[in-house]
């Protein structure tokens, strides 16, 4: 019995490790810093991360307030101004149907971010739970699950998404499903490797000994301790999801006209009129590039910030 209590103490200590460290830091600091001060310190340490974070913030705000920011309706056709060059009226010009490209890019950010965030969050979260469960249960379940993950990971992301979209059909909902599914095994594999080490820590044994259910052990005691790789995966997935959505839409398998979507803006008229009206292709392409760049950079910075090894160097 004494041994069991000792194991429980170790488990509790392990579970509270992160909290204890935080407490120590707070104790060591003479004055508690404000949120803005912390933000400023982070920006100094991770300037690229700060820039990319700002870009993402702007993108999110633009997406939320698209109806107010966009100077024109993104789907209204104005044939008198077909393929108009950038001007004061149309900042980034118009497409072949006379629609304002600037407004379509603004509204397209909504499509990109909705698909990007939802598929990244759902895919990574399901991967997190499955990865941790696989590591925790081990044995036959782990063996079979990892082989399934191997099968999924054998396909390039775009091929997998294409296959899923061709089964379910196009449209925002189906594109989200198509992008989410390939993310699950990717996240599960990464998270599992962290969870395997976690499984060996005695507090997990203690939790078992206390009679906690598998669900409780996985969700309450293990998942919170693999949040760092999870968060990094989520941010990198958002960028990948935006790129995938754009690719699927470009191939005609993603969202459909007249919905404003960056990839969609690159097909059809953009291909046909690229030489005579380059703005129809350049600006949506730039929007995709900047968005993916921002999320990738932010993911890198987050990794640097959360990885203790990189933080110490």
């Amino acid at each position, binding site marked *: 019995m004494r041994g069991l209590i000792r194991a429980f103490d170790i488990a509790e200590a392990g579970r509270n490790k992160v909290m204890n460290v935080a407490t120590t830091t707070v104790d060591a600091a003479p004055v508690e810093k404000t949120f803005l001060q912390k933000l400023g310190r982070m920006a100094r340490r991770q300037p690229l991360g700060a820039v990319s974070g700002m870009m993402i913030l702007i993108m999110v705000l633009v997406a939320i307030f698209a109806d107010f920011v966009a100077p024109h309706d993104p789907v209204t056709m104005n044939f008198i101004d077909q393929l108009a060059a950038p001007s004061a009226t149309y900042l980034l010009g118009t497409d072949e149907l006379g629609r304002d490209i600037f407004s379509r890019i603004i509204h397209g950010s909504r499509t990109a971010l909705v698909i990007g965030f939802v598929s990244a969050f759902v895919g990574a979260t399901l991967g997190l739970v499955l990865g941790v469960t696989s590591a925790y249960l081990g044995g036959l379940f782990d063996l079979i699950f990892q082989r399934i993950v191997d099968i999924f990971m054998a396909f390039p992301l775009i091929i997998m998404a294409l296959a899923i979209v061709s089964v379910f059909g*196009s449209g925002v909902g189906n594109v989200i499903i198509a992008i989410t599914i390939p993310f699950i095994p990717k996240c599960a594999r990464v998270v599992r490797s962290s969870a395997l080490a976690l499984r060996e820590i005695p507090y997990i044994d203690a939790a078992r000994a206390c009679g906690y259910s598998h669900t409780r052990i996985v969700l309450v005691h293990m998942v919170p301790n693999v949040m760092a790789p999870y968060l990094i995966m989520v941010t990198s997935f958002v960028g990948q999801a935006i790129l995938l959505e754009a690719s699927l839409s470009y191939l005609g398998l993603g969202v459909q006209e007249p919905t404003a979507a960056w990839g969609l803006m690159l097909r*059809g008229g953009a291909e046909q009129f690229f030489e*005579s009206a380059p703005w129809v292709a350049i600006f949506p392409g730039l929007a995709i590039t900047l968005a993916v760049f921002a999320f990738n950079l932010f993911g890198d910075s987050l990794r640097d910030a959360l990885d203790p090894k990189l933080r110490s160097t």
Partner: protein
Amino acid sequence: MLGFRALAAVTAGAAAMLATGFAAADGHKPKYGGHFTFVIPAKAPPSLDAHRETTYAVIHPARPFYSTLLRVNPNNPADPADFVCDLCVGDVPKPSNKGKTYTFTLRSGVKFHDGTPLTSADVKASFDKIIFPPEGVSSARKSFYQMVDSVAAPNATTVVFNLKYASSAFIPALAAPYNFIYSKAKLDADIHWYEKNILGSGPFILEEYQSGAQITGRKNPDYYLKGQPYLDKITGVFANKESIQVQALRGNRASAQFRGFPPKTRDDLVAALGDKATVQESDWNCVLLATPNHSVKPFDDVRVRRALTLAVDRWGGSQYLSKIAIVKTVGGIVFPGSNLAATKAELMDMDGYREDLEASRERARSLLKEAGVDLSKTYVLNNRAVDQPYKVVGVWLLDQWRQIGLNFEQKVQPTGPFYATLREKGDFDVSIDFNCQSIVNPPIDTSKYLSSDINPQNYGRIIDRKMDDLYNAMLLEADPKKQREKMREYERYVLHDEVKQMITLWWYRTTVHRSHFKGWKVSPSHYLGQALDNVWLDPDADK
């Protein structure tokens, strides 16, 4: 807009057409020899049997290997009523027995490419398969021949068609380019043989077919039109993507694409190739429809359907969409410019064609309100995943309907699922649909709008016997003037009174080919002019 260089090329093309048209008269003779490569802008056809298929993807690769009984004059394909004998001799026969009997005399000495003689038995067997297909055999144009009672072959060189009633639609139907003459022996052995094999008596003999990749043929030395074909060899290359087709023409890897290009691509090709490119343009016997699903609410209500048609700015659309898509002409259910087509004044007397667009749209809004349509709901427009012109027109329609408060989203599907939705599932509110025909034959072409139980190609789930009666009255009318009047009644009922379906815009065909490719003339259909027996290559044109 058609640029100056494009205009110059069109003019040059027209001049070239005139020149070749009068080739015999001015002493210029076609050149012999050469290997002609053309692009087939499609994927592999479902089968090689033209009797059962409806796509140009089977005509473009397979037509050069076959003969037909009649055909549109290859030297004057712009005239939809100029038919000439292909396998028959002399002029197109006049009917006897009060217009109910047509007797054709066949050329003698015609052989299939395997050396067996082609006789009236082969012609009869082919038309029996088309008109009276046995169970389990599909015939896409069976309904075109409702007037035919029987086909007979009294001797080796005579074929007789006995009609139930005299019909001006019979000869045009007979001249359809899909009516390949097959070998009776092959059909008797296996009626599905031609779905996977090619054996005809046409100007070229099959050398190789790689499904979806390419098809190659060599000159038929025993072709019955003496001196033809001029080419030694032909190769059709399947290339579904427009960018590949354009690069093939620009890089001189292919000399022609026969379906057509959008205006911008025409301008780009002319800008790149100069006088090495020839442009030929024509109205196109193809139209995109918007077909409401009459079995779902609220589109079972004529007020809602009327609102849909009233919202569409066809005259403006013609002006603007023709700059970016292969559509242009405003028309009714009949191919514009043909003998039974509506005039502009007649069109403008129908809802959806009137001059005052704002008044029409205001009326449309009132009708929607009166019908109690839920404007907060998003309805589904089923569309085909083909950019030109399906998706362009689809997006345009959504914009037009949005202006009267109706919100639609597009459900864009590849061809297979698109047809499955139209034919079996029926899970759409409104669908883009099309009516593309080869021969301009208005009485038959307009059978598309008959009740769905009579013509399954009417995908609107419509049953209306009054509409069918109006069609039949028009079809059976022998007097051209009265037939035109009856066509107007039928058209008005379909498009105005009941708004069963909606015509969007008729297509406009713009072909671009290398100038060294001679003798070919544009027609109102991309199914015509594909035998390639009267075309040749002139290497001097590239110098």
